[in-house]
């Protein structure tokens, strides 16, 4: 049975709305634990406010953050799936309908990069990336709206035969540069290797990884733990006014590279907007996370 455009439209719009009105359950648990361990009184109070804000938004159908960001979707299509209508257009239509009808209404955040004119729509928006999954009959869709609070601090650099130390030092430099500016504690995604475009994509996929999902690569697992400990020693704390927890997680991914090794570092803020669903070939829709 083919997947129809109406399902794509409804699912992607629902993913976006859900990402705005709640925080992921795993993220809430991490924040709650961080708040319990926090020794700075201001940061401890900030963690309580964060949980209250997130819970109130979920309970009352409010926006956690008024900056609804730029809508982005990652779509992974099983090669056994058939569609009976447009996919990219369905995602655009879903976003357009949501922007016109959502309660509460949303601010215009889609911005022309040169004229700075704002709208609910714009060229190539929503930003959608596509990939394939061999031999399955489902489509996985991740929605991760992206705003300036963290987006402006993300960075990438090409190294030549870097050591692990070079890469770790670079990640810390990027976090230090951001300092108190993003809404801390952040999740840090690191993409190492591949090509310029691929490293950025690796970093983005890494930042979206659910908390607690095991890192099977021992080299990367060591980097993740060391970097998380190091960032939390910096002391920026919740909302950047000082404290023990500046990052909730550091997630690292790599691809084979060349002598040159691009390293990309991206962030999600404490509300960690990400939702995901799987549309099966028989039309069933399954929530993956968020």
């Amino acid at each position, binding site marked *: 049975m083919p997947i129809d455009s109406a399902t794509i439209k409804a699912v992607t719009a629902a993913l976006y709305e859900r990402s705005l009105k709640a925080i992921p359950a795993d993220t809430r648990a991490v924040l709650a634990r961080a708040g319990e361990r926090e020794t700075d*009184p*201001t940061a401890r*109070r*900030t963690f309580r*406010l*964060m949980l*209250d*804000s*997130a819970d*109130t*938004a979920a309970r*009352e159908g*409010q*926006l*956690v*953050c*008024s*900056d609804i960001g730029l809508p982005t979707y990652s779509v992974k299509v099983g090669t056994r799936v058939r569609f009976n209508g447009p996919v990219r257009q369905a995602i655009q239509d879903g976003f357009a309908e949501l922007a016109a009808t959502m309660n*509460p*209404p*949303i*601010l*215009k955040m889609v911005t022309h990069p040169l004229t*700075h004119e*704002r709208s609910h729509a714009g060229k190539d928006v929503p930003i959608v990336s596509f990939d394939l999954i061999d031999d399955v009959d489902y489509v996985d869709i991740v929605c991760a709206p992206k705003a*300036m*609070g963290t987006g*402006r601090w993300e960075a990438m650099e090409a190294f030549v035969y870097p050591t*692990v*130390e070079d890469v*770790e*030092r670079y990640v*810390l430099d990027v976090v*230090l540069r951001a*300092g*108190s*500016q*993003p*809404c801390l504690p952040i999740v840090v995604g690191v993409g190492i290797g591949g090509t310029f475009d691929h490293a950025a994509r690796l970093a983005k996929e890494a930042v979206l990884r659910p908390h607690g999902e095991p890192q099977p690569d021992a080299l990367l697992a*060591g980097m993740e733990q*060391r970097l998380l*400990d*190091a960032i939390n*020693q*910096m*002391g*920026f*704390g919740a*909302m*950047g*006014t*000082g404290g023990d927890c500046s990052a909730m997680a550091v997630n690292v991914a790599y691809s084979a590279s060349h002598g040159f090794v691009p390293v990309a570092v991206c962030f999600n*803020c*404490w*509300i960690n907007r990400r939702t995901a669903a799987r549309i099966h070939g028989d039309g069933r829709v399954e929530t993956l996370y968020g």
Partner: protein
Amino acid sequence: MSRLHELTLPVVPSQIRELRVGDMVSLTGAVTVSIGIATHQRMAEAVRGGIPLPVDLRGGAFLHLSTYVREVGDVREPLYLNPTTSTRYSAWMPDIVRGLGPRFVGGKGGLDEASATALRACGCVYLSFLGGGSPLLSRALRAVRSSHWNEYISQFRLLTLDVQALGPATVAIDVHGGNAYDSLRARAQARMPGILEGLRGARGAG
């Protein structure tokens, strides 16, 4: 230990001097908000040109809070608000602070050194609001007192709101030289050699 200061606007300088970095503040009264860069440019140009603004910020608050106002006919209803990153307005904040006399500015992430200097010189503090705190902060909304420069989109207008106990917000730059952002950055930079040494040791142990 930090304290919660429940303040009604406008305030006098002695009330501002009582505030220290880390203290909590809630604001009641009229606060003016905008997140428009063009709005800030226009405010700073008005100050430099001696042109009066349509709102009086003296003793009050000018905040980087993004606000949605629903308009039905002539009725304006504020639905929600939330802070945005203040540093992108740093170029215009010294003129705004020196020329318009607010006692509070705020948003999230702080301001640059020139702005912090202007804050100290003028007896104005910077408040850090909770990013992602829209459901809590929006409880304070009561009414739109005035809306100017309405040719801009909602969040870019020069909007004055009646609020009841807006906050809590954290004092992050005070008038006594306290600046949470500067001190945290300096502390983090000072810690970096030790952090990097610890990483080397952990890699060796791993």
